[in-house]
């Protein structure tokens, strides 16, 4: 048996966890020692209490935000992949439309969200559209790059074997694009969540369909800072969860062969 500290899996979990625990302990003791008022900077214990007491409301809000983020994420995957395949058809199409994809990417979502919210009647749809706009670009650019990043030797081999267009697409281009595509997914999943939260801030939607951003806004108005932190904590948790899911998915798909997913033992 090797000592626990040398085990790779133990360290990847334990080391960051230890840092987190130490930070929380210092935070708690510092707040207590300097008597910092709750409405300025709450203790972790205050946030924890709030998380438990307001759990039903916060959970609904989390569900709302996650739903919009996931809808946007899936929409971005479908639309982004379709656009990438369209770009693959000809350089002319790519060159004509790629600048507009960039335009979409560089325009801050906060600036166009009000417009989208005015134009689209249904708030839920409007929020999803905003988040999709944010999440779309990494999928387009990464998938396009991946579909074009094919080993030229393999292209020659396929040509010499008289492979058809579809054969080349399925057996060569799509597998070559996968690592890039999953890279795009990782970035895009986080962006979808950010897009959803930003759009909620702009829309300021209340009522039964309130997301976490609305909870944060409300908590700010009411000086309920622990609740604000609790909502923030849930957003972060959702983001980390999404990212971890993408990492897992990518490992599942590429684990056997791609350098990025292959451990050092090989």
């Amino acid at each position: 048996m090797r000592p626990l500290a040398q085990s790779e899996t133990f360290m990847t979990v334990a080391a960051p966890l230890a840092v987190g625990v130490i930070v929380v302990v210092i935070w708690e003791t510092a707040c207590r020692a300097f008597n910092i008022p709750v409405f300025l900077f709450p203790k972790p214990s205050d946030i924890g209490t709030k998380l438990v007491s307001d759990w039903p409301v916060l959970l609904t809000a989390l569900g709302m935000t996650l739903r919009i983020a996931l809808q946007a994420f899936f929409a971005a995957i479908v639309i982004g992949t379709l656009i990438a395949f369209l770009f693959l058809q000809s350089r002319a199409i790519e060159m004509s439309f790629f600048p507009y994809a960039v335009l979409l990417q560089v325009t801050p979502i906060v600036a166009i969200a009000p417009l989208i919210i005015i134009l689209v009647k249904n708030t839920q749809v409007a929020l999803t559209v905003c988040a999709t706009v944010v999440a779309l670009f990494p999928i387009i650019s990464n998938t396009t790059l991946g579909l074009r990043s094919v080993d030229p030797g393999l292209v020659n081999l396929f040509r010499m074997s008289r492979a058809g267009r579809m054969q080349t697409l399925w057996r060569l281009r799509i597998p070559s694009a996968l690592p890039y595509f999953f890279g795009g997914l990782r970035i895009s999943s986080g962006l979808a969540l950010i897009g959803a939260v930003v759009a909620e801030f702009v829309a300021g939607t209340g009522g039964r369909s309130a997301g976490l951003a609305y909870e944060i806004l409300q908590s700010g108005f009411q000086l309920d800072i622990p609740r604000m932190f609790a909502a923030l904590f849930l957003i972060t948790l959702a983001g980390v969860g999404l990212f971890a899911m993408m990492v897992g998915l990518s490992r599942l798909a590429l684990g056997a062969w791609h350098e990025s997913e292959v451990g050092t033992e090989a």
Partner: protein
Amino acid sequence: MLAPNPALSADAEERPGAGAPVIEILSADKVFPNGTRALAAIDLTIAGGEFLTLIGPSGCGKSTLLKLIANLIEPTEGRILWRSGAFDKVGARGRSIAFVFQDPTLMPWARVETNVRLPLDLARVPSAESRRRVADALSRVGLEGYARYYPRQLSGGMKMRVSIARSLVIEPNLLLMDEPFGALDEFTRNRLDADLIRLWWERKLTTVFVTHSIYEAVFLSTRVIVLGARPGRICKVMTIEEPHPRHESFRNSPRFAEHCRALSALLTEVSVEQMRS
């Protein structure tokens, strides 16, 4: 020059490289769209069963010539005949050309068996038939136990063997190899050369091989073509009349050394001519 080899003259029918022409290149040249003249008009006949090696300095158009033969690119002028007929599309009926590249060019996402089976899958060969052929090809290159491995789990030499196995599954009637072992260490290269020459002999392959190495050219070839650069053209031709199948012991024979010296002298002559012009 060397005296005729008694082992060869005794049995002229067994002598490789005396078959009907497989490829005839009739004053074909290649000018790339950017104006670079890669090849001057080349005339070359590749006979069935021969092991032809192209050797020459960098930029002498060896790879271009090989791609012309593979019909991956078209000649700017001149014609290329396949078994004395017109040369149209790649892989046309009755012609199966295998190309082994400088790199193993394997699909990293696919297991060894899938990589080797690729040309059969693309040609929609039935799976029972392709399974048999893949197993056969893998055993010929000595990789029986590695069918389920991924390329990244193999050494450079083993990857090259997979690449060769892939070229053998289609039972090619012309095998083109572009510096296949250039990136390997000398031990691995020597071993693969020996395996290659055995395969060539067993399967009566017609092979065109590109290399930088004099030793490799002498060990493998029935005929060596020395190319000159800018533009690429045929400068010298040398036949190596030694019995087949050749074994590792051939490397240590005085005849091998003499052939190497002769080929080296030809290469020197060509480079001196190049310096003058």
